[in-house]
């Protein structure tokens, strides 16, 4: 089969997959809305429906992979595939990424819709003095101070200590996934930026300190957006608690990565020297740091290439040519 024919076949196939994606989303949206309108106290229906949708969308993504394997094998038979092959790979990647993004957006959006419906039920439960609780010993009204979780409330009349439990919607919203879903939705844009930063960072063969800092910053922005949204609805989330939560989340994200911090710092230093055009400094640094084989001129050259760092490349290419 000719390159044109294979290209056309691939495009037609991707078009079919895209159409199927549209069909699945068109069926899933109203179906999930209907579920949310029917029941939100029970999280099982929405969770199982989302699992079903995700399974179908993942199967679509797999189809793109499988079909590419077939097309790729046929392209191997052609000599002049070159840049057309790259463009075909990119087209498949774009569609796969779109499927992934649509899956996440659907899950986030519908979970947040369920949370909003749950919050409305929780508000109805709370829309009574004391949440409508009465002392189970003498019947006097109680005034619980915590409404989002179980608490001990002494009756002002008979002194009996009542264990007061919030309504199911209230408990589900605050102690279950409700407040999380709304916070995740509020932080969605920061989440996309974090994903892009993570992809970039993880894609680097030779990450440097500034790359790690950029990833860490994106992580902090996401968790701050998430925690601020969550804290706005959750009792007890003071600014100190919020700062602590963000710090812990960022710490968890970076904990294992930081084992590579010495390597990041080494690469930062090498790139800085190359960027500054300091040939003597870079040579001395390579002789010193590279003595144990942990870093070489080739590594620094690759690092500059993957960043398209023209300034650093100018000196590094000269050094490599002279080497």
């Amino acid at each position: 089969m000719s390159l044109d024919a294979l290209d056309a076949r691939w495009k037609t196939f991707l078009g079919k997959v895209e159409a199927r994606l549209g069909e699945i989303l068109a069926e899933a949206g109203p179906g999930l809305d209907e579920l949310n309108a029917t029941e939100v106290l029970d999280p099982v229906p929405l969770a199982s429906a989302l699992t079903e949708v995700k399974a179908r969308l993942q199967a679509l993504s797999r189809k793109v992979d499988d079909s590419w394997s077939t097309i790729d094998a046929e392209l191997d038979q052609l000599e002049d595939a070159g840049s057309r092959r790259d463009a075909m790979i990119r087209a498949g990647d774009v569609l796969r990424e779109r499927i992934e993004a649509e899956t996440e957006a659907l899950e986030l959006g519908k979970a947040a819709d369920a949370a909003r419906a749950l919050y409305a039920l929780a508000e109805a439960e709370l829309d009574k003095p004391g949440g409508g609780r009465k002392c189970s010993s003498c019947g006097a009204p109680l005034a619980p101070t915590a409404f989002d979780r179980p608490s001990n409330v002494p009756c002002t009349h008979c002194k009996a200590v009542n264990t007061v439990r919030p309504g199911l919607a209230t408990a589900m919203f605050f102690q279950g996934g409700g407040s999380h879903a709304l916070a995740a939705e509020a932080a969605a844009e920061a989440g996309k930026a974090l994903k892009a930063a993570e992809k970039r960072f993880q894609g680097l063969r030779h990450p440097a300190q500034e790359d790690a800092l950029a990833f860490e910053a994106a992580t902090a922005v996401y968790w701050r957006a998430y925690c601020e949204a969550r804290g706005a609805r959750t009792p007890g989330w003071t600014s100190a608690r919020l700062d602590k939560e963000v710090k812990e989340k960022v710490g968890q994200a970076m904990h294992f990565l930081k084992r590579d911090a010495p390597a990041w710092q080494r690469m930062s230093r090498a790139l800085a020297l190359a960027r500054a055009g300091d040939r003597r400094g870079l040579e001395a640094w390579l002789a010193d740091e590279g003595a144990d084989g942990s870093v070489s001129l080739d590594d620094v050259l690759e690092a500059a290439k993957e960043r398209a760092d023209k300034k650093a490349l100018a000196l590094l290419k000269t050094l490599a040519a002279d080497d």
Partner: protein
Amino acid sequence: MTAQAFLALWGDVTARVAALVDAALDVEPAGGLSAAWTSQLKAYAVPALGEDARFAAARTDKLAKGAPIAELTSCLDALTKAARLQLAQVTKTLSPPQQEHVHRGLDTLTAEALRRYRELACARPKKMFGHAKAVAAQHRYDEHKGGHSYVLGCPTCGAPRLADDLSCVFCGGEVAPR
């Protein structure tokens, strides 16, 4: 003609029909072209429809998967024609009504194969949320909707709990659900 020869031939025909339908059904997306289907088309000397024509045919036939019905029909026609010739050799000793019966059987087999193919290839996946909707309709937690309060009591002296800790302020016993 021996019964064994007829049965062997008939078995071969049905196996070829089944292989043909299976290969056509395995084509995905609908109107596509798989390696197995291409070899079936070659085996029956049926030219494959063009790229646009085959997807257009799949849309017209409302296929959810599988090769275009026109291609399968052509293959089945070719198979029937070849089978008739082969069967003629072994059915010539039969009476005309018996021969007619065999030929009708062949037509029925291919017609039924095509009908079944259409049914399977056009079947749309079941609605996604059947199970979820059934569970949602149960409203399993409605009875737990409202919050409630309760007071633990001393099983020894019957006094209500009057302190945060779980011992009775009167007799020192451990308070418990009443």
